[in-house]
């Protein structure tokens, strides 16, 4: 076990969180290998494959939100000299910042706001430049709290809003 490599991977994950929350998308993309896979509930269906697809989709999804991501208590294992895998318990808070009331009751209201708990299950690879990058990132939720405030001017029961899980 190389303590230096473990620390480098912890700092890699710290930059992953910091560049997401401060929305520095080019620097964020650089933390992934070119052929990385991102599999998170924010993205419906198939996992995202490749750095450009990952960066574009996440930038699009998170730009209109205030986000806070924290990681805790990593378990990281080196597998050979240039591969590693890790588990990170995580907490995140996502707040939609466009809360305008509109005339259309279907889209009117504010939110959604999410508070989430779970684990990142990850694989890392060291490039020829000596830097560790994320090769695979999968987010498994333990719990997600969603808060929505819908205007319901006609008094009918609001549609279930469970389809918008971030």
């Amino acid at each position, binding site marked *: 076990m190389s303590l*230096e490599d473990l*620390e480098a991977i912890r*700092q890699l994950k*710290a930059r992953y969180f*910091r560049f997401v929350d401060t929305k520095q998308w080019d620097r964020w993309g650089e933390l992934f290998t070119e052929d990385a896979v991102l599999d998170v509930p924010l993205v419906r269906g198939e996992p995202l494959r490749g750095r450009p697809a990952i960066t574009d989709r996440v930038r699009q999804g998170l730009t209109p939100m205030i986000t*806070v*991501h*924290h990681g805790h208590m990593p378990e990281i294992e080196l597998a050979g000299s240039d591969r590693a895998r890790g588990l990170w318990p995580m907490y995140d808070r996502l707040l939609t910042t466009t809360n305008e009331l509109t005339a259309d009751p279907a889209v009117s209201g504010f939110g959604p706001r999410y508070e989430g708990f779970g684990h990142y299950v990850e694989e890392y690879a060291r490039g020829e430049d000596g830097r560790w990058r994320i090769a695979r990132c999968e987010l498994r939720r333990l719990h997600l709290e969603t808060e929505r405030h819908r205007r319901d001017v006609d008094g009918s029961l609001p549609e279930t809003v469970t389809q918008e899980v971030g």
Partner: protein
Amino acid sequence: MNIEEIEAIKQLKARYFRYLDTKQWDRWGDVFTQDAVLDHPANRSEPLRGRGQIVETVSAGLANRVTIHHGHMPEIEITGEGTAKGIWAMYDLLLGPTPDGHGEARYEGYGHYLERYEKGADGKWRIAHLHLRRLHLEIEQHKRDLDLSAFEQWERA
């Protein structure tokens, strides 16, 4: 990369949080260099300068508040002989009276500490510069506003 120095700085920041939240102000002051700067632009426009002013101002501001501070995901880099810099993601919860003293306020904050560290002649790392930047702050206030004069006026009418 020097793992022992990085670990020492992580424990320095742990003591910063612990002494702050347990209000051990003398010990908290010793985590700063004598000429340290504490810059929290969202809270006060001018940075606090020097250990004395930092301890005096922060201890007075938090004296009657419950505080919880957590740090996460440090990125620490040794930049030279006895110098280092670091970034910490942070969360804090502050409970106490509203500024006017007529109610209770709850502040829940998220952000980053951007810091520089120096190692003293005694071999101990200290915080030389602390800059807190917020990502998000939630404020909840419960104010007492019980003025009976309007009710008395209504009774008399």
